[in-house]
């Protein structure tokens, strides 16, 4: 099980973003480097890529607030 964590330097300012979209559904098989989610932070969109190969599980829902360093899901 690998956690999917938002990088501590994913955006500059110390503000929250929100999960814009899960590009792949819960339970989808993804490969390392696939863009699996998008986060929106004010005018920015931040891509979240899969840290490895595996089956995706969502820990949060679209529209939920997220912070740098926070966990949004996991790969099994």
């Amino acid at each position, binding site marked *: 099980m690998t956690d999917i964590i938002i990088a501590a330097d994913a955006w500059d300012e110390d503000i929250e973003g*929100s999960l*814009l*979209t*899960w*590009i*792949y*559904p819960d339970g*989808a*098989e*993804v490969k390392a480097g696939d863009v699996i989610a*998008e986060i*929106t*932070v*004010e*005018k920015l*969109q931040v891509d979240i890529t899969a840290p490895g190969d595996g089956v995706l599980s969502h820990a949060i829902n*679209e529209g939920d607030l997220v912070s740098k360093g926070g966990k949004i899901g996991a790969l099994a």
Partner: protein
Amino acid sequence: MTLTADQPATTAPARKVVMNRAIREALDWELANDPAVFLMGEDLGKFGGVYGTATGFFDKYGEDRVRDTPISEAGFMAAAAGAAMSGMKPIVELMFIDFMGVCLDPIYNFIAKHAVHTGGKQDMPVLIMAGIGGGYCDASQHSQTLFATFAHLPGLKVVAPTTAYDARGTLHAAMRDPGPVLYLMHKELLGLGLWGTMPEASSNVSDAYFEVPLGKAFVRREGTDITLVGLASMTHVASRVAKTLEGEGYSAEVIDLCSVVPLDRKTVIDSVRKTKRLVVIDEDYRTCGVAGEVIASVVEEIGTELIAPPQRVAFLDTPIPFARPLEKFARPDEDKLLKAAMRTLKHA
């Protein structure tokens, strides 16, 4: 260049993407596959575009093909016309459709009319992209849709996709068209939090080439009691109202015009022939608008078959207010459409 529509890969899981990603992937494909294609616009190069449609292109394709322009819409729109006459395929982003006033002469008098001026001997393959729509307190100069302005004068095709899937497919169709296409991106649909995001606009889109035809309307929901016609984000408003009506015991059909020019009158007429009731929701100004054109087109063909007067739900004929309550008062929304639909359904 021979193009075939790739079948979406069946082994990969379906991706759900927001509209601006689908547009970015379509533009990426065009730049990668046709050396005649180049992009130009304000903040489109190093910044990647205010809508995030060209993120990373400046580094990937270089400053000759992804060009930052000065704030000089008349200059770069006219340059696009000249480039197209010289064999290029320019894609020009006019950041907000509201800025069309400063470059209307190159758009209307050169780009739109060139094929006729040359007796059909020269193409004018220009794609003009622009953001449209309001609802987020950006006032009179950054909130308009202006569908009717561009529908009225002949020569341009005009498309306003509703979903990420249609955004990708219509962009490729527009690039295969030998004539100029105005490609309108509703800010509420792009997936940018700043402008509000309608979740319905995200859809499954494979990262492969495919086309969605221009000039074709789509039935988004089938129904038998009333036809609701929408365009861009107002299509999603119509779908939400159709769900509410279902709870009231009414079956509403929802049609997404998708293209303003050519206008697919047949799909609307076929629907109203069945439902015999029609309400059109249009974010553009009410008078002389697309909603009135759709209603006139239906009434000309099957007016005597209607069992209730058709209704328009459109923006009030006023410059778009800045204040949130005033903008909400003037702008079409679910409440206004629901009221018009109920009035139509209860007409004796």
